């Protein structure tokens, strides 16, 4: 059985198809902006960074080691494009970080976020090699406990900005898109 389509029907169908072609990229515009974590998280001023540890250079490092410094705890996967771009932003802004008291802990997600990839050192070597020798940057691997505590939603590129007093002040994602937040935090935490 064949259906005879009239010209207006065809035009209508064609217009819908064209609209879909346009809308499909536009759908991407509706994706959350600059977030791979909560965009507007509830205030966390009273929340203290929980005790946890991670692995760096084969050693267990306690988060408490960094108390007294503002800290950015950034969890990444080494297959993630925005994480790579984030490291590149930090390499560009290295002078700014070096002037601050900030410590930036870059940790490979527990089990690399469930998908294989290179080590965190190789990742940094590829994306921003100068950061590997910068004392403000610490590279390592999540422990399962830290991953569960600081990234319960299992986001791929997420960071916590922890004040020198140990309180979590900002939770955000993708430094490549949100570096301004980090810069503001650094300024606010600068010692007089």
């Amino acid at each position, binding site marked *: 059985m064949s259906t005879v*389509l009239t*010209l207006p029907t*065809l*035009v209508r169908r*064609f217009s819908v*198809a*064209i609209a*879909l*072609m*346009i809308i*499909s*990229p*536009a*759908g*991407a*515009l509706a*994706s*959350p*902006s*600059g*977030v*791979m*974590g909560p965009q507007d998280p509830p205030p966390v001023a009273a929340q203290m960074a929980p005790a946890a540890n991670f692995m760096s250079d084969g050693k267990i490092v306690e988060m408490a080691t960094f108390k007294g410094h503002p800290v950015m705890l950034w969890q990444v*996967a080494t*297959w*993630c*494009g*925005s*994480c*790579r*771009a984030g490291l590149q932003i930090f390499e560009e802004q290295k002078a700014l970080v070096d002037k601050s008291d900030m410590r930036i802990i870059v940790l490979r997600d527990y089990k*690399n*976020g*469930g*998908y*294989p*990839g290179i080590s965190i050192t190789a990742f940094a070597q590829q994306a921003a090699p100068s950061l590997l020798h910068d004392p403000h940057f610490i590279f390592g691997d999540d422990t399962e406990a830290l991953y569960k505590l600081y990234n319960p*939603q*299992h*986001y*791929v*590129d997420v960071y916590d900005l922890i004040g020198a007093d140990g309180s979590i002040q900002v939770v955000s*994602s*993708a430094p*490549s*898109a*949100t570096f301004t937040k980090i810069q503001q935090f650094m300024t606010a935490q600068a010692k007089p």
Partner: protein
Amino acid sequence: MMSATLANIGSVPRAIHYALGDQRAKLWGGVLFVVAFGFYLLVLPATATGGAIGWVSLRWLTPGEAALALIMAMLLGLTALLGVYGLRQGAQTTQGKSVLGALLAVLPTLLCCSPILPITLTAVASVLPIMGTLGLPLQGFISTHEALIYGVAIALMAWGLYGNARRALSCAC
């Protein structure tokens, strides 16, 4: 067989030549090309910003992504040109493959590193627990196979264009 295939492919520029003579078809094709090119320029580099789109993503645009945006926008624009021309000539056109290609092309941006997939799968996992473990591996796969996904998207768009060219020619009497 080979020469027949080449002759078939050769029908595309011929159909485009005919279609360019139709003002309305040219207008549709031109508008879609401009809109699609602008969108793709903003959308493709968003894999580097975790899905953030706008000036922030444009900063990360690479020459390769600009070339991809141009190719895909041209394919969509030409498909629209031939589609409108074919319709005006009385042909039945289909846009299924082109739409699929256009959707596929935004997949890496939408799903690679943005929270869409984890959030969706977390919601699904509340009903079907096994789904909760799929989100990150899927994001990892998309992120590490971007070139393949763009290749398939372009192939689908090219196939759609070829189909419309044949239909347009069959009616260009």
